[in-house]
């Protein structure tokens, strides 16, 4: 019963997640740019623009220039997120790739710190949101919700890693079953069920939330337009 229920909700959440994001991507991709609005000083060639977008997406270059504290919090959070997600790859492929095993070896020695640098910036960003009056003023419920959701996911993950351990083989069998369309029973560890439920909520909520910034950053016209309006005529697609 539990397994069936979760198998269905998992597919449901994944479908919403994937279709939701793809719809957004499609919309962002086809909505026209009537005018050149690159924020200068901007690169004057395509390679420069690609570099600019990559730097913004990976190192948060613009944020670094504007606010060091938010940058630090954001970087720590996203880096921890990246490492955590990368270390979850082992549940999705069999056999586990060598690279992920290397990462695992590294994480086994410092694992708890990753947990801490995942939770600490969430805490910092939450406190900052409540503490700084102008940011508190512009915050809406969704901003707090997403931080709490991520915090709970992180906390349940850490609990599973260090305190109430699920049977990892059962977990992997379940997940592999899901992604190969041959459902397997759901592990019964309560913390795993919590963790999994929260992740499904996150997935289903993702396309409708501000988390879509992860996709949107690649489409931002002030950053991804080449500064060459004098050299090359830009044509407005709806006003030819």
């Amino acid at each position: 019963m539990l397994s069936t229920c979760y198998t269905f909700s998992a597919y449901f959440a994944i479908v919403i997640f994937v279709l939701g994001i793809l719809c957004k991507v499609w919309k962002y991709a086809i909505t026209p740019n009537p005018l050149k609005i690159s924020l200068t000083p901007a690169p004057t060639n395509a390679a420069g623009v690609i570099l600019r977008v990559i730097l913004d997406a990976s190192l948060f270059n613009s944020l670094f220039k504007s606010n060091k504290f938010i940058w630090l919090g954001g970087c720590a959070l996203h880096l921890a997120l990246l490492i955590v997600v990368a270390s979850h790859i082992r549940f999705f492929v069999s056999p586990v790739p060598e690279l992920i095993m290397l990462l695992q070896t590294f994480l086994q020695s410092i694992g708890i710190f990753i947990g801490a640098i995942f939770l600490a910036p969430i805490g910092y960003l939450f406190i900052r949101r409540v503490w700084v009056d102008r940011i508190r003023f512009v915050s809406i419920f969704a901003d707090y919700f997403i931080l709490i959701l991520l915090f709970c996911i992180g906390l349940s993950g850490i609990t599973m890693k260090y305190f109430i351990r699920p049977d990892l083989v059962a977990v992997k069998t379940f997940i592999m079953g899901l992604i190969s369309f041959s459902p397997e029973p759901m592990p019964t560890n309560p913390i795993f069920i919590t963790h999994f439920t929260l992740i499904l909520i996150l997935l289903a909520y993702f396309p409708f939330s501000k988390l879509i910034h992860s996709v949107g950053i690649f489409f931002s016209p002030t950053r991804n337009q080449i500064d060459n309006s004098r050299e090359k005529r830009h044509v407005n697609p709806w006003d030819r």
Partner: protein
Amino acid sequence: MAKEKIEVPKLTGKIEIPRIKPGAALVCEHHKAKEQMLTELGYPSALVENWQEKAIAKMRELLNKYKSLKLYLDVCVRCGACTDKCQFFLGTADPKNTPVGRQELLRKIYRRYFTPAGKLLGGLAGAEDFTEEMLKEWYAYFHQCSQCRRCSLACPYGIDTAEISMAAREIMHSIGLGTKYTDEIILKVFNVGNNLGMQPKAIKSSLDFCVDEMKEAYEEKGITNIDVKIPMDVEGADILLVVPSADFFASPHIESLLGYAKVFHQAGISWTLSSYASEAGNFGMFTGSYDGMKKVASRIGQAVRDLKVKRLVIGECGHAYRIAYNFWNTLTGPFDTLDPKYPVPQHICEFTYDMIKRGAIRLDKSANDEFVVTYHDSCNVARATRMGDMPGGQFEIPRAIIKACCNKFVDMPQETIRENTFCCGGGAGLLTDEMLEIRIKGAMPRMQALKQVVDSHGVNFYVLICAICKAQFTKIFPMYGFPMDMVGGVHQLVSRAIIL
């Protein structure tokens, strides 16, 4: 509009982030556009009956037309990096004057009518109905943005509040809500050809007067062989110069016009102004109207073809150069008839810089020895255009010209110049008397930075390349205790230093 005496912030030389005062700037409102103006511009003459529906419909249209709008309404995470960047927030302390606070006004409506979360959860998802109070806030706050893009620089995703406030202004127009100041000016351009509504004859006589004055001034110094002309409507000239119409008569703008004339004269290149395209500025951008912007810009394309010129040069004007640099090619191009060897269009500073480099003009630095000069990067030039080949040329070229014209030059603090520059506080339709309070407060960060170099280096001349900045600062400087004649154009320095 506050009738009582406006309190001018004290200058300490430091820019501090204030504690928030919600609603502090709500009372400062533009005068609304008159019925007949709106009708003439093709908008409803007054707030229409079903304004909510119409506004939502317009918003839907814009969301499909502008990637920037579509994207920027979705991706903001309210990280707060922009909140201390806007001069209007720093000045007024109203949290709805922070970039994100301003955007949220539109985003709340967007969420309510366009996103599943907002439709289902309402306030919990940060959505709000489009009520009359909301419309009032829209009218106040979206007209308190000077579209300077300082926030976009700070934003990790490059969200540009200018794009959002332009959309909001266009939506408001579509339901019959405009500001008197910008609409009046756009109409003047449509009807007469320039923002000030100067008829060609008036321009001509003003220019003739100028030339005579200049001649006399030189004769007083004992130089008699000076014959600098300001030609107008000369067909077949090499260069068409388009300047903001304030340059035709207002002070200190006109000093720069003399500067351009002298540079052209000395370079020996034939040039002309156009009485038809007698305005570089384009307030269409301030109302967010693509069609308006296009209609204003089309006069330039027409003049280029009519006068059969080979090059197009823009005078000292901030948003005009942004539109010229980025939009003219799209709006009224392609400029096939112009000489492709030169950038189209070219900024006058690029032209002058080129002449200096080639040695075509010579400058006597000592003519400006009485000045300690600082340079104000005008926001639109700094963050939306480029001069020369290299990114960042818009910072280097004007500075290079200034340094060639005077001996004493200092920059204001790093975090207030170049791409981090503060707006003068008068851009994007704020340059009107009823908005004086916002203009004063919005200029505060810039004044603090200036105060710092005035105190430490004795700066006594403040040069820039924007007509709106010039008009704003000549009004605001005395209120902050700086002399009005401290403000000048880059070509004012050139005009004084150039050896004829």
